[in-house]
């Protein structure tokens, strides 16, 4: 089941590349759209079929891959990954729809996109550290080309920056991974890359993996690798550039999924596998005990304030992503039920909301061909539906209760407050600043007198509405009844090494 889901896009890539002629652009898009619907169907099936009361992984598939190093093809999903797999599968067709207007080398674009989807779904399903790494890197390559070829004017700079940054992180991650592998056994006891096994070993007292000093260093290696992806201050500067240059659909994937790969890695590896290392950075004591929470705080406040300063619509959304990832981080640092639930929920919700935001920016960019916030004005009277949906997305993003963004943020903060009082209180400043930049943007773009340049601007069309409506519905439904999502991963959270 999972393998099918992972490799169907890959198969689809071959179909698009070899079975469709260059000039059949329309056909290529349709075929890709249908291909991306298959993982979505499987994901919906998983969502329905998933046994919410059972802890641990489900739908596991396990077979030997590279015998010499005991590398296995081991995939499976637990509550943590199933939500993100669903998100990935959902954004797939939406992004294909959002890419409908791309006219340069559409075949190659779609093929790369499908490859990217394989990488992302595989990453969230992988239970073998090596496989995990392979999929992690697999997303990098298509992303590089998607930004570097189909991006804006500074696309090459942005693509290289993104590539090098991530590569830098993943090298450290690779080192940490190999270290963990080497420590997992001896010449007599088989070493392993298997994540569930490693998690068990790291908990076993006296095992080499359970050594706190080792865990701290391994933690750092993994952490930097994931921090680049999240991104966590000060590794965040690739994000605004990449977002600004990337085409709309790729921004959506970047914000919706790729950032989540970082936080997912933090939960899956740093938190679950290296509890001692986590403890060192989150226990609130000693020189380093607040560091994760401090980083979360910096992300929230710094990201929000930077967003306030932006005049490029897309850059503003990009910085707001940095701010929102801070809530994930601070919830994670709390290591308690509400903090972690909030963090995971925030991952999912941010995926949905930021996807909406980037799609919305794309809509206005397609019409006005620029993204300068101060260059708009009064669009509200010309594009009422667009304005309405944007308001919904902005409100969700600034954490309006009743919409999904609030629940994740509130739970993260509630959880974090019991551990890091001062930092959490300071972080709430991010809520105010978040409201400030979104409202200010709303005012500059939509309110006020209509800028005469846009007298003839057209209302959002049906295809664009179709990309936004599923996300909008999710935002509202999860805001009203977040248990739908939380039920999925409650058991998974309870398995994590929580500290009350």
């Amino acid at each position, binding site marked *: 089941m999972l393998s099918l889901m992972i490799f169907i896009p890959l198969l689809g890539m071959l179909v698009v590349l070899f079975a469709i002629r260059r000039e059949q652009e329309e056909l290529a898009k349709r075929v890709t759209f249908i291909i991306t619907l298959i993982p979505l169907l499987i994901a919906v099936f998983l969502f329905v079929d998933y046994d919410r009361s059972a802890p641990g992984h489900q739908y596991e598939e396990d077979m030997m891959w590279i015998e010499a190093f005991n590398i296995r093809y081991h995939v499976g999903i637990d509550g943590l990954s199933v939500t993100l797999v669903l998100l990935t599968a959902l954004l797939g067709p939406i992004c294909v729809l959002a890419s409908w207007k791309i006219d340069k080398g559409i075949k190659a674009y779609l093929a790369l996109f499908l490859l990217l989807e394989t990488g992302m779904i595989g990453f969230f399903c992988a239970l073998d550290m090596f496989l995990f790494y392979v999929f992690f890197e697999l997303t990098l390559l298509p992303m590089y080309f998607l930004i570097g070829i189909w991006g804006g004017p500074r696309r090459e700079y942005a693509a290289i*920056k993104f590539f*090098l*940054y991530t590569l830098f992180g993943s090298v450290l991650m690779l080192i940490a991974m190999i270290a963990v592998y080497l420590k997992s056994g001896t010449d007599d006891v088989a070493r392993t890359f298997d994540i569930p096994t490693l998690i068990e070993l790291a908990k076993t007292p006296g095992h080499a993996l359970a050594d706190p000093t080792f865990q701290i260093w391994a933690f750092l290696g993994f952490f930097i690798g994931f921090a680049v992806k999240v991104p966590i*201050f*000060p590794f*965040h*500067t690739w994000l605004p550039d990449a977002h600004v240059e990337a085409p709309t659909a790729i921004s959506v994937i970047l914000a919706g999924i790729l950032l989540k790969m970082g936080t997912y890695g933090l939960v899956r590896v740093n938190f679950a596998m290296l509890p001692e290392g986590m403890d060192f950075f989150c226990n609130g004591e000693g020189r380093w005990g607040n560091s994760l929470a401090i980083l979360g705080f910096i992300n929230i406040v*710094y990201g929000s*304030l*930077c*967003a*306030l*300063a932006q005049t490029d619509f897309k850059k503003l959304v990009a910085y707001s992503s940095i701010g929102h990832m801070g809530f994930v981080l601070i919830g994670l640092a709390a290591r308690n*039920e*509400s903090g972690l*639930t909030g963090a995971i929920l925030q991952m999912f919700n941010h995926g949905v909301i930021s996807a909406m935001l980037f799609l919305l920016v794309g809509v206005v960019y397609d019409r006005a061909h620029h993204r300068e916030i101060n260059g708009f004005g*009064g669009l*509200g*009277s010309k594009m*009422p*539906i667009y304005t*309405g949906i944007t*308001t919904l997305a902005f*409100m969700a993003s600034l954490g*309006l*209760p*009743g919409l999904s963004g*609030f*629940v994740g943020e*509130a*739970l993260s*903060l*509630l959880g974090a*407050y*019991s551990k890091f009082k001062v930092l*959490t*209180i300071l972080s*709430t*400043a991010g*809520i*105010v*600043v978040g*409201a*400030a930049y979104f*409202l*200010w943007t*709303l*005012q500059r773009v*939509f*309110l*006020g*007198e*209509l800028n005469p340049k846009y007298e003839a601007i057209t*209302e959002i069309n049906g295809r664009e*509405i179709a990309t936004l409506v599923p996300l909008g519905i999710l935002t509202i439904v999860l805001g009203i009844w*977040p*248990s739908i999502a*939380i039920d999925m991963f*409650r058991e998974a*959270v309870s398995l994590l090494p929580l500290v009350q």
Partner: protein
Amino acid sequence: MPVVPLISIILVAPLAAFAFFGLLSLTGRNYARQDLVSTAAMLVAFVCAVLLFTNVVADPDKYSHDGAEIHSLTWLPLGSVNFSMGFLFDSVTSVMLLVVTIVSSLVHIFSIGYMHGDPRYPRFFAFLSLFSFSMLFLVVSDNLLGIYIGWELVGVCSYLLIGFWFEQDAPANACKKAFMTTRVGDVGMFIGMMMLFTKFRTLSLYGTDGIFALASNLTTADMTWLSIAGVLIFCGAVGKSAQIPLHTWLPDAMEGPTPVSALIHAATMVAAGVYLTARMFPILTADSSLFIAYVGAITALVAATIAIVRFDIKRVLAYSTISQLGYMMLAIGAGSYVAGLFHLTTHAFFKALLFLGSGSVIHAFHAAHHAHDHDHEHDHAHGDDHAHGDNHAASFDSFGIDPAQDMRHMGGLRHKMPITFVTMLIATLSIAGVPYIFSGFWSKDAVLVEVLYRAISWNSVHHYILFSMAALAAVITAFYMFRLIFMTFTGEPRNQEMHDGAHESPWKMAIPLIILAVLSFPIVNKWSFEKYVKQPAQPHVHAPKHATYDASQDVLHAQLGLSDAHAAEDAHSEDAHHDAAAGHHNPDHDKAHNIVVPLSFVIVIVGIGLSALFYYWRKISADAVAARLRPIYTLLWNKYYFDELYDGVLVALTVAGSKVLGLFDLRFIDGIVNGVGVVVQAGCARVSGWFDNTFVDGLVNLVARITWSIGGRVRRVQTGMIQNYLLAVVGGVVLLILIFRALF
């Protein structure tokens, strides 16, 4: 009457009206009669609220306690901690439901006339429905999280409705300001919620494991903590109810359509802050109560003083609202839940009436203004110019005031708009506190009595100060409210052209005015209110430490402070009315009452009399007084410079700071990254260049050199002499033959 289904209907009806609009607009269409859909939904909710109220009437003993009936279910089960959502039904909820549904229904009806012809007419009603839903949700929530959700939702509706005419800059700015300012308060409230949650592991208020039950067990060691939590929760109310220092958004919010001002910014949403504070009553401590009381009293006084010098009719009412909300806060802070909520209820009606009345005037003037524009296009500037007959100080220009809202253009409207005049006069008499006849007197009187009662019984200097501030504010209130009436409805018309165009509003607008005017009489009276609403106990409130009282009195006052609660507990055996009376029959309370009632007469006479001297009989020139007291006048005209402080300092600093940070990010952090990139690139280039030259290129060169030298040698074979080649060929053949011979 079953509670849950009725509350569900109350919530679902307006929400459905909004959803109808929202789904339809995704297809790019609007239903032109959204007004009927929304109004019908609101009337359904009103009927349900009335039905629910019959529960309270039938069983006052049960429902008069706060948190009487709760139906909740788990909303967010996290494992060890759960968040629940649910309905709370008690007399306070019931009263709030009635207030909200009545005012909302009337405002809906009023708006059908007022908003007629607006290009976004259906949207307006959809937003009103969404607001009504949010407000009702807030009121029926049984836990802090639910209240917070409703709280923020009403904030957004307020944002959407203030910015309804977003094409103009003023509403666009005002709606942003309103949202931001209240959000600052909300963050405080959220921090308070975090504190309570961390301590009690729940956000439910009632029940054995609710916050109130758990908080009542706290000891004196936790009092500082609890006080801080209480003040932080109160921060939310400060923002929403526009208390000082977060009051500045409310006057600006008057940029929204007037029915919105009546519903949201006078009767319901801004009162939600008072409602929240009242709900939090049991966890208030002596210190947080005093804090709340001071904020309320200062707000009441300061806002009243600002109202004196405003010319925009809606701005006057806005400051009046702020001031009255201050009263309610003062009452709750002074330990009287009942008086606070009572004033909330009466105020909702007469203030909604005042706003709708002003809306009626504005509507008339707008119509006149438009007609005037059509007739005399050239005359526009002139029309604005000659209207300054009553300009107090020429230097304070009327910039930014809509001519249709400027009281300096009005005057003498009582003949033109008799219904509006009479109803507004009733409301004004009510808010000014004219004794006995009007509801405003009873509620304001209750507030003053309660404050003075605390002052006397605790012999507390603080409460004496609070009382005098409240009394002074009452005088000012009477003064500026009658200034409004005199300037608008009496005297000679100051802008003849606009005056000529003005006319009485259509019946759709007049009927709500009349109904509200009826409600401004003591239909909602003190006795019935006290019968249905019982004050919950405040386990942590005691006389302030500094108060000079003796120990024997302390015991007495401790009992008195809880008298209502005791009364509530004994309510099974005795008639509730008698309990309330028993609570009031203690000597200090009687003493307070005996002082306040005559004082009320004085207040009203002084306030109205002064106002009449200035604006009716014109015995004293307001301009002259203003000129004499120029520094004070300037201060008041500039609203104590709060806006300047916020815009010029806080907002400017934040924005500037963010710009600096943005540059810091772009130049410094990204600079470092790019710098590293450049350094690495350059360094790598050098290293790899050397490597390339030495090894890679060396290897290539080596191959080339070897080839060269071999070629150099082998070349000699190529003599160019055919005979040599031929010799080689022959030699080769011979060799081959020999080899073959040898092999085969």
